[in-house]
């Protein structure tokens, strides 16, 4: 259950639309099922009332949409941002990807989002309705009239279990109270992998990454991936589709994807959320973040606007690549 109610958000958006502050609203809209909430643009109060959604499935981070949606818009676009979304917002501003003047950002508090895969693991397939407005999540399936009741804490998305911040780092207006940066355990899993042998790690990733179907959803959803022309769209790159290999095929794609956002990834978790194969992509991003923190000092992408990403920076005393392993193996 979210602390802030859907009606409050609609009321806010409608009043700003009606008084002319904004011309459109970027928010969460109804999808095919209760749990596949999708990004949507609303232009009137009626549209909001009919289609606007705010529940435990509003994981989508809208920062990236601002690039295209503000491009030819007359007036301002209202956007709702959860705390983690505001980091991507700042990062995109740092990279001059959209015009701040064209956006009216409203911060909404977030109590954590639900992972539909975890819900299905409890309720089974065939979900006809999900209601997250009560203390418990009520899941109705086509097989049973009585809903399955699930504790939201049991199906919390991984990225929300390890939430790094409930604090909004950018907004024009904040609904609810200001949150805090959290001392999360988000690097624990990376550390566990680091402690394994190379062979074990290889087996781990082989198992995870071979499931990849190269749908490119991770790239498409990532707010750090906003290049107009992407290397993965180039049929001559040799990494645009699944490649035959005698070990496993997708490692090159994944190194490249993660590397392209290294130092700019805010750890928003969108990549893992949208992956239809439930591949823990966030572990690759977090490996880079953890390394960068250890080698070059703590750095959180998107914390402020205008900060210089660590991989386009240097000091004369930086660690040598070889020393990285000496240090770890000690």
């Amino acid at each position: 259950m979210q602390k802030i109610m859907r009606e409050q958000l609609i009321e806010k958006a409608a009043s700003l639309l009606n008084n002319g502050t904004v011309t459109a609203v970027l928010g969460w809209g109804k999808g095919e099922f209760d749990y596949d909430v999708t990004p949507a643009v609303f232009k009137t109060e009626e549209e909001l009332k009919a289609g606007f959604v705010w529940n435990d499935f509003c994981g989508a981070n809208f920062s990236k949409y601002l690039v295209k949606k503000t491009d030819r818009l007359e007036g301002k676009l209202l956007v709702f941002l959860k705390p983690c979304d505001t980091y991507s917002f700042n990062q995109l501003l740092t990279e001059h990807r959209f015009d701040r003047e064209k956006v009216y950002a409203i911060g909404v508090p977030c109590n954590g989002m639900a992972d539909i895969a975890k819900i299905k693991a409890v309720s089974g397939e065939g979900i006809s309705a999900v209601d997250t407005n009560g203390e418990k999540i009520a899941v109705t399936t086509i097989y049973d009239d009585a809903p399955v009741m699930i504790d939201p804490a049991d199906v919390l998305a991984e990225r929300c279990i390890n939430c790094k911040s409930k604090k909004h780092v950018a907004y024009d207006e904040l609904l609810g109270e200001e949150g805090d940066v959290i001392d999360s355990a988000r690097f624990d899993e990376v550390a566990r992998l680091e402690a394994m042998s190379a062979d074990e790690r290889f087996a781990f990733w082989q198992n995870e990454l071979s499931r990849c179907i190269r749908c490119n959803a991770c790239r498409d959803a990532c707010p750090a991936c906003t290049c107009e022309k992407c290397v993965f769209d180039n049929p001559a790159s040799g990494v645009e589709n699944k490649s035959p290999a005698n070990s496993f095929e997708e490692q090159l794609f994944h190194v490249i994807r993660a590397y392209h956002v290294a130092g700019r990834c805010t750890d928003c978790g969108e990549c893992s959320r949208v992956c239809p194969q439930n591949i823990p992509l966030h572990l690759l991003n977090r490996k880079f973040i953890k390394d960068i923190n250890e080698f070059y000092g703590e750095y959180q992408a998107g914390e402020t606007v205008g900060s210089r990403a660590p991989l386009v920076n240097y000091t004369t005393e930086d660690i040598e690549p070889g020393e990285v392993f000496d240090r770890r193996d000690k």
Partner: protein
Amino acid sequence: MQVKEFKPLIVAFCCNWCSYAGADLAGGNRLNYPAEVKIIRVPCSCRINPMFILRAFQRGADGVIICGCHPGDCHYTSGNYYTRRRMAALFSMLDFLGIEKERTRLEWVSAAEGAKFAATMNDFAEKIIELGENKRLEDLRCKK
């Protein structure tokens, strides 16, 4: 049956101003280093897009080594400082995926260090021979 001796394919990216000249000096001084080392000359170590390294592995390289001017000596002042950060991140990631860490290396070799160049290549080749073929990052489409 005769077992075929493993001849590794090693790609060495060398910056034009220091390491390539170092390799030249090694040659001029008749210092031996393995013929399997294929040198690719680049204007500066920071010309080496991390994609080049992945590409080399994809196409069957067994090891990739990068050589540039010593820190502070880059012909373009700061290129190798960027290289150092990029490669630290990339090598660490490859290791994280379970690619043997000995398959990648970065070494600073000046134009005067012909002996260091030869010694580095001998040592690197030895490590790669110990490891054997690169199976974990190759792409079968690129196999001849």
